[in-house]
């Protein structure tokens, strides 16, 4: 039987090809290598270039959103590996490669996978800083997901024991290398989530090669960490190893030992802080009681000054002073009077006949009457007279 000749429109043809391409899983997830040429950037920021080798070429476009995530920027002549999908641009009858990742050739395949997953998870927001939780300053129960036989476990336990033995550590053993490790880690983290009271999780593994650390770059582990209710600290490999798990974690430590140090406070620092607080409290209280004592003393002095005893004492003092003044006055007055009196006495004395008598004069008295003889006319011969001299009297008869 003859088939009717089917005649297609151009657009129908293009749609058919588009359908074929979009349904093909290989074409939708490709890694391609080649050399970059005809590189240009559109006004919108998209990167257009041709990828070629000796046998052919293909047009590529790297959209701005993917370009922004690139740490490597291709130039003309670079040998690269790209990841992307084939698409049909029907309006112009072209097919091109929609690239989401460009890496220089020579980089290992593992590295390519790493970059691809990293880009994808970053886009989904697994690495967002805003979503990262704070590590509790004084954890009470720490879960430790690590190999039960590695050195990392002992290192971490020793450090926690030294720094902060208050905490309880729960070891959730897991495989940390090999193809089963990522599922083992995810399972251990799930089991941890069933335990009550865990406030921090440490995911740790000692140093190793990229292959050995690979489980920590797998999507399963990354999603496990992202889904964890509890904050996660990762301590994987050496200082320079950064795994995808580190990027998703709430806090990345460069090594397992560093993770232990970040997880718990240091006991001796706490004790030092406690001691300084105690000293501070004591000094405050001492200052205040000293100032209170001082104020009390001042009040005491004030009270003292006002006290009845003091008042009485003061009055007594005043009275004593007054008495002293009085006695002095009296004494002085007496002195004055005495000297006045003595003055009078000596004047009197000066006027007394005694001095005259002592000078040689005598008082003559006519007896028996005792009249003082002042004149010769007062006496006749044979009159009896009494003569008073300085030290006594004697009698006589007038001649």
């Amino acid at each position: 039987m003859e088939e009717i000749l089917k005649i297609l429109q151009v657009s129908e043809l293009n749609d058919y090809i588009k359908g074929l391409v979009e349904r093909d899983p290989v074409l939708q997830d490709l890694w391609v290598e080649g050399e970059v040429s005809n590189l240009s950037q559109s006004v919108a920021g998209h990167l257009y270039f041709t990828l070629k080798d000796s046998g052919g070429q293909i047009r590529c476009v790297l959209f701005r959103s993917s370009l922004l995530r690139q740490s490597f920027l291709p130039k003309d002549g670079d040998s690269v590996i790209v990841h992307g999908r084939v698409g049909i641009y029907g309006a112009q009858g072209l097919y091109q490669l929609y690239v989401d990742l460009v890496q220089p050739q020579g980089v290992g395949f593992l590295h390519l996978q790493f970059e691809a997953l990293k880009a994808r998870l970053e886009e989904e927001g697994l690495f967002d800083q805003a979503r990262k939780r704070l590590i509790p300053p004084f954890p009470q129960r720490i879960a430790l997901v690590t190999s039960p036989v590695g050195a990392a476990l002992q290192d971490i336990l020793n450090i926690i024991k030294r720094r902060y033995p208050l905490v309880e550590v729960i070891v959730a053993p897991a495989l940390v290398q090999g193809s089963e490790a990522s599922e083992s880690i995810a399972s251990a983290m799930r089991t941890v989530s069933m335990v009550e009271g865990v406030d921090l999780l440490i995911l740790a593994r000692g140093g190793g090669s990229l292959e050995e650390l690979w489980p920590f770059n797998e999507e399963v582990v990354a999603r496990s960490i992202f889904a964890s209710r509890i904050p996660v600290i990762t301590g994987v490999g050496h200082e320079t190893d950064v795994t995808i798990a580190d990027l998703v974690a709430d806090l990345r430590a460069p090594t397992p030992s560093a993770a232990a140090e970040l997880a718990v406070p240091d006991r001796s620092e706490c004790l030092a802080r406690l001691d300084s607080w105690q000293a501070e409290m004591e000094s405050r209280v001492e200052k205040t009681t000293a100032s209170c004592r001082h104020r009390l003393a001042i009040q005491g002095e004030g009270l003292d000054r006002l006290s009845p005893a003091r008042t009485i004492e003061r009055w007594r003092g005043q009275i004593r002073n007054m008495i002293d003044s009085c006695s002095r006055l009296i004494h002085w007055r007496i002195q004055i009077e005495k000297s006045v009196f003595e003055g009078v006495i000596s004047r009197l004395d000066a006027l007394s006949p005694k001095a005259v008598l002592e000078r040689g004069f005598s008082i003559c008295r006519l007896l028996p009457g005792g009249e003082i003889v002042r004149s010769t006319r007062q006496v006749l011969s044979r009159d009896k007279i009494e003569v008073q001299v300085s030290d006594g009297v004697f009698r006589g008869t007038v001649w």
Partner: protein
Amino acid sequence: MENLSFEEAFRQLEETVQALEQGGLDLEEMLRLYERGIKLYKICSEHLEAAELRVKQLSLSLEGNVTLEPVPPEPQESGQ
């Protein structure tokens, strides 16, 4: 008060010290806060000094039961 966790006691002590530092308290309040502070200090010190690290191992049975088994402490290293 004696049942306070280390963290809670530590936090309360910090608040107490801050309150004392701010001042403006009468003597009785101050002495009361000081007493409280010393109690909290003792609780914190005891937690820190008496603590011995407890380590437990987690296992998940086939039925999905989670168990925690204590892990005996490592023998003390000499000279630590």
